[in-house]
């Protein structure tokens, strides 16, 4: 694996450890008074901080997950080479598309 991919995965793991903790803490805090999903989203609309937070979250996932998945596929299947790399680039773009769609829903 390229050392840059290796380091990208480590750094995004660090970002995700913080982001997942903040996400869970926020959800737990928000629902303890009985807020519904719709009521939560009504509060996040137009909030740039939420948009930035989840935007960073999505980018970190789109970098982190395909690199890890590539290692798992290499270890557990005979799939190698450029087709594997291309498939994981597409998977990364898929995660980005899904993630930004959700970020848009949180913000707009």
């Amino acid at each position, binding site marked *: *694996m*390229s*050392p*840059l*991919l*290796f*380091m990208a995965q480590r750094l995004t793991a660090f970002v995700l450890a913080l982001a997942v903790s903040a996400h869970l803490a926020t959800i737990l805090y928000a629902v303890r008074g009985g807020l519904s999903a719709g009521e939560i989203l009504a509060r996040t609309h137009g909030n740039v901080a939420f948009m930035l937070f989840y935007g960073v979250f999505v980018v970190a996932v789109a970098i982190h997950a395909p690199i890890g998945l590539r*290692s798992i596929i*290499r*270890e*557990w299947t005979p799939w*190698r080479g450029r087709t594997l790399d291309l498939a994981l680039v597409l998977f990364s773009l898929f995660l980005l598309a899904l993630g930004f769609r959700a970020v848009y829903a949180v913000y707009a």
Partner: protein
Amino acid sequence: MTAAAAPDSVLEVEIWRGAEDGSFQEFRTPQREHQTVLDLVTEIQREQDPTLSYRFACRVGICGSCAMVVNGRPRWTCRTRVSEVIGGGHRIKLEPLRNFPVVKDLTVEMTQFFDKWKNARGYFEPGKTPAEDFAIVPPASKKRREIDEHIECIGCGVCYSACDVVAWDKDYLGPAALNRAWTLVNDVRDKGNAERLDAISQSEGCQACHTHMSCTEFCPKSLAPTYSIAGLKRAAFRHSLWGKR
């Protein structure tokens, strides 16, 4: 201190027979005081079945050629006493080293293992022009101390047999080859580090290590290839960013 075995103790020894396909054959042989696993295999071969294949040379923990899997753990059989591995029982199971093709019985093919040393550029690269004088390498210098223990590897293959990543990915270079590369990365006389760090940063290189530390756990010389690999990861990252080594 090991208690002497009773004179009438009999060991039940299961030994792998065949190559990739094969089965375990059971032998019964006397248990003796201070007997090593290598003594046991030798006695079975000489007294019971001369077709049993295994490999050894020095018998005293220098060459590393007698490595086998003993009761599930890869070990040097010449440095393993029977009394250490049977606990309170009388059974021993002997298998060839894992992650190697089996030639026959307890003998494995080590070509791929040493080819990976070459793939990791685990050989000294003097550069295009020979050095004009002897290199002075102070024993207390940081780079020399970094590899004090790692240069003691004798290539027995125990770490390679214990490595989960090799089991999953047959192309993974493995702890021994990467450990050798690490010793050269820290060799101030060597001129091949740019190519070496590229070689160990392929998909099957040091970054594939999961840090399970099985190599370090099982190394008969108590070396720590895991730390060599961690050092390579750092060196490869610095090299990819700034071309430093």
